[in-house]
């Protein structure tokens, strides 16, 4: 096992979470929707609390900044609330939220990129948030430090990708969505999604292989 593999939990649980949440969502959504529409006290707040972690993490992986991620997740919930009346329930609330938050995050990324381009401003590596990574409970402080460093490098490398390349990589690699699901989500052809993924990985490999060579 490489040191990275030992210290960083690369879990693909998100995909299962996503599927499980959707299935569970389908069953609970009807009741929840009725409660929400009836203005049941606390129903909306309860929904937000139960989905907050998943959506903040989704946005965080996409934009790489916690404050922005929380703002994006919040906007997603507000938009859900505003559209409750028109919600017919033929898609689950959790997949609706997943979709709106990814799109808001990607729009945000694209705007961010443009702002930097227009103002010749580039986010410095040290401006990237300190990375929180899930690590083995038994990992040594040194391993943890290395995991944080790798995480930092990853976010910096992701930052150099185009918004779409980044989104495709994060959704495929870290969120575990299939290319087909990503194509539907981003309204792109599957071939385009493949091309974005390929370019993203090619760019990331340069960064990350370098780092692994340093360690081995």
């Amino acid at each position, binding site marked *: 096992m490489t040191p990275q593999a030992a210290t960083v939990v690369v879990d693909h649980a998100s995909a299962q979470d996503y599927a499980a949440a959707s299935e569970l969502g389908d069953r609970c959504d009807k009741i929840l929707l009725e409660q929400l529409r009836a203005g049941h006290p606390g129903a909306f*707040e309860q929904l937000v609390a139960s989905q907050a972690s998943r959506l903040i993490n989704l946005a965080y992986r996409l934009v790489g900044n916690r404050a922005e991620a929380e703002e994006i997740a919040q906007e997603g919930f507000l938009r859900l609330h505003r559209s409750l009346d028109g919600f017919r329930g033929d898609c689950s609330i959790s997949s609706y939220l997943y979709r*709106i938050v990814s799109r808001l995050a990607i729009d945000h990324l694209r*705007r961010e990129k443009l702002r930097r381009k227009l*103002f010749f401003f580039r986010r410095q590596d040290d401006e990237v948030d300190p990375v*929180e990574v899930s690590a083995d409970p038994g990992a040594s402080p040194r391993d943890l430090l290395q995991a944080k460093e790798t995480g930092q490098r990853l976010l910096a490398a992701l930052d150099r990708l185009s918004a779409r390349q980044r989104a495709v990589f994060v959704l495929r690699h870290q969120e575990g969505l299939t290319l087909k699901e990503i194509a539907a989500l981003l309204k792109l052809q599957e071939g385009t999604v493949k091309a974005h993924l390929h370019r993203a990985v090619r760019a990331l490999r340069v960064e990350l292989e370098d780092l692994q060579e340093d360690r081995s």
Partner: protein
Amino acid sequence: MKGIGAKHCRKEDLLLYYYDELDTQRRHELEAHLNGCAACGKEWQQLQRTLDGVPQPTIELASGEAERFAARVAERVQRPGRGKLWLWGGALTATVVLALSLTVRPPGMLPGKGSNLVADATIVQELELLQNMELLEELDLLQELEGQG
């Protein structure tokens, strides 16, 4: 030594193989080739090692944090208004317009210098893109998502 005569694996295919996105036939062909080709085997292992090593940035919400977040969102429902990021988007457009007007007429410079025109045209296009993106956010995305609800 089967597979040696066949073409080497394309990097794109190895990547799709990693994510289990190849169709069955292509997957079998690729596996057969990998078994017999040291060069592709090495490339595959390297790709696998890099991708397996990509960390999963995760925010662990401390106890009570999700509830506090939910309370903030619920409060925002009560007093509608745009969030910081979205307000800032409007301010950005205004700033870009200002920056653009400054760029178009730089003091002490003759207008119509070739390179500047090209640069200006790019900025105008990007400004349009920016506005389109805001429109998209406002109309397209909202309507379409609400329609799907």
